[in-house]
């Protein structure tokens, strides 16, 4: 617990890290919602009194950044175990796995707090709906764990810190952009790829789980029908996607364990 507290403190005291990981996504939500609402004829669309625009954008940006937070694991791992500090830390009566688990726990906790903060600010200031709180919180936790496990995998495979961090960030973009939810609408004419990016990526599973649990249902563009479809509250879809996301995370963790046994660092 002491080691976990130590790593959490180090995440909190880095001003640049806080700015990029906490304040920037909140700012991005505000800017995006404002720009989009202003561009809409007749103003924002309300559903059960909540802003559809703010709900969609806040959820998207929150999930997008959650998938980038593997950078926490990369940053702390490289700073402590890819240089001479490694010897000092391992000379203490604590195993490497204890340190790595502590980094993961601290980073998960930090990520969850950030995700909750983004949604809370969007709910209070922009009239966003927070969906089913249990589902939202659970999915945030699962994504946080997934991201740290992914960050660990990247740290094991890539020697340079900058490259490893870039991979964590780009991984998020490469899941989201082809789905058509962010920046550009992409028409993918290959059926298998369309299904993959809209249903099978961790991002797609996370978004479907969250959105299905709330008032708006699934907001992912459906290229088959060519129209946005609202499914309404659908806990079975939410639970199904939470389950597949959890299974994906567990599979990734198994891969990390296998890779870590073959790699020395």
């Amino acid at each position: 617990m002491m080691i976990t507290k130590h790593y959490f403190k180090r995440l909190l005291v880095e001003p640049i890290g806080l700015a990029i990981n906490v304040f920037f996504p909140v700012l991005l939500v505000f800017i995006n919602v404002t720009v989009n609402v202003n561009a809409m004829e007749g103003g924002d669309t309300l559903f059960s009194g909540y802003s559809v625009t703010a709900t969609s954008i806040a959820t998207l940006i929150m999930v997008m950044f959650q998938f980038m937070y593997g950078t926490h694991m990369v940053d702390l791992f490289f700073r402590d175990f890819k240089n001479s500090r490694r010897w000092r830390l391992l000379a203490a009566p604590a195993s490497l796995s204890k340190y790595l688990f502590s980094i993961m726990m601290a980073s998960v906790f930090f990520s969850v707090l950030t995700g909750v903060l983004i949604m809370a600010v969007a709910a209070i200031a922009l009239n966003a709906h927070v969906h089913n709180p249990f589902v939202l919180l659970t999915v945030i936790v699962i994504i946080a764990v997934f991201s740290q496990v992914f960050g660990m995998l990247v740290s094991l495979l890539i020697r340079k810190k900058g490259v490893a961090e870039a991979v964590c960030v780009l991984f998020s973009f490469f899941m989201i952009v082809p789905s058509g939810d962010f920046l550009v609408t992409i028409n993918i004419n290959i059926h298998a790829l369309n299904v993959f990016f809209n249903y099978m990526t961790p991002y797609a599973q996370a978004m479907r789980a969250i959105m299905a649990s709330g008032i708006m249902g699934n907001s992912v563009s459906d290229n088959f029908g060519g129209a946005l479809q609202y499914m309404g509250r659908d806990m079975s879809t939410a639970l199904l996607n939470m389950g597949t996301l959890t299974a994906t995370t567990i599979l990734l963790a198994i891969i990390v364990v296998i890779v870590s046994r073959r790699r020395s660092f």
Partner: protein
Amino acid sequence: MIASMRNVVKRYGDTMALDHLDLNIAEGEILGLLGPNGAGKTTAIRSLIGLISIDSGEIKVFGESQGINNTSIRRNMGLVTQEITVFTELSAIENLRYFGGLYGLKGADLESNVKRVLEFIGLTEHAKKRPSKFSGGMQRRLNIGCALVHRPKLLIMDEPTVGIDPQSRNHILESVKLIAAEGTTVVYTTHYMEEVQAICNRISIMDSGRVIAEGTLDELIGRIHHEDTIRMIAASPSDALTEDIKAVSGVKNVSVSGNNYVIISGADSGNLNRIMEVTIKHGGVVNITADKSNLEDVFLTLTGRKLRDGGEG
């Protein structure tokens, strides 16, 4: 004996980092581990702490077999790394608290030890500042302090004075003596002979992965047959003075340049006083010094190479 290494072998690919290394560490001593870069000093201490596995041999610390999974032994060991490895984003006191906590200290015990170490390293007034605000010497002191919080029985210091000014170096050397005086056994690795000469009770000289000589400073220097070089400025140089100096028993060679005399004499021949007496009879001595054999000479004799950077002698 607080620790021992017997016939230890460690290879990195085709490179023999430790070549049947034997090393004993007596309780309470300051053992100097001297050798050029690449001698195997760092590999030796990392295997002693249990940070790396060995290919064969035996390492015992506090009576127990050392290994990479034996974390319990490490509770009573401390490591001062060559590089500064404190956390620059945390204050000095936060660093000390963390490292103390890693070694099992808690609550009032932790706080009292942190306070003690802050006083010892002279950073009490800077406790709440971050190491990024410190000078190089202060950072080095904090680096040492983090290894002392838990009062280790065995402290390993891996070239702790690299890259710092002479004043800070002297402060660190004095601190090492104080640490040992409080009962901590110290293993001090360095390639600076002046440091081991200043503080170590016993010295092990390493080269190519093995100990090539060990003993006290006097024992090591006494092992080699070497010459003393006496340099003198005579008040009244003359041919007669030169002949009388050459006639002194044990003098092997005299070279003269103006007032400057360079006299090669057998080691420990005691000729410094005799030459002074002779020169005083011939008008007096302006200045006289004798270059004694040192560890550099010991290493050179044993390996044919210089101690600094392992270059060719």
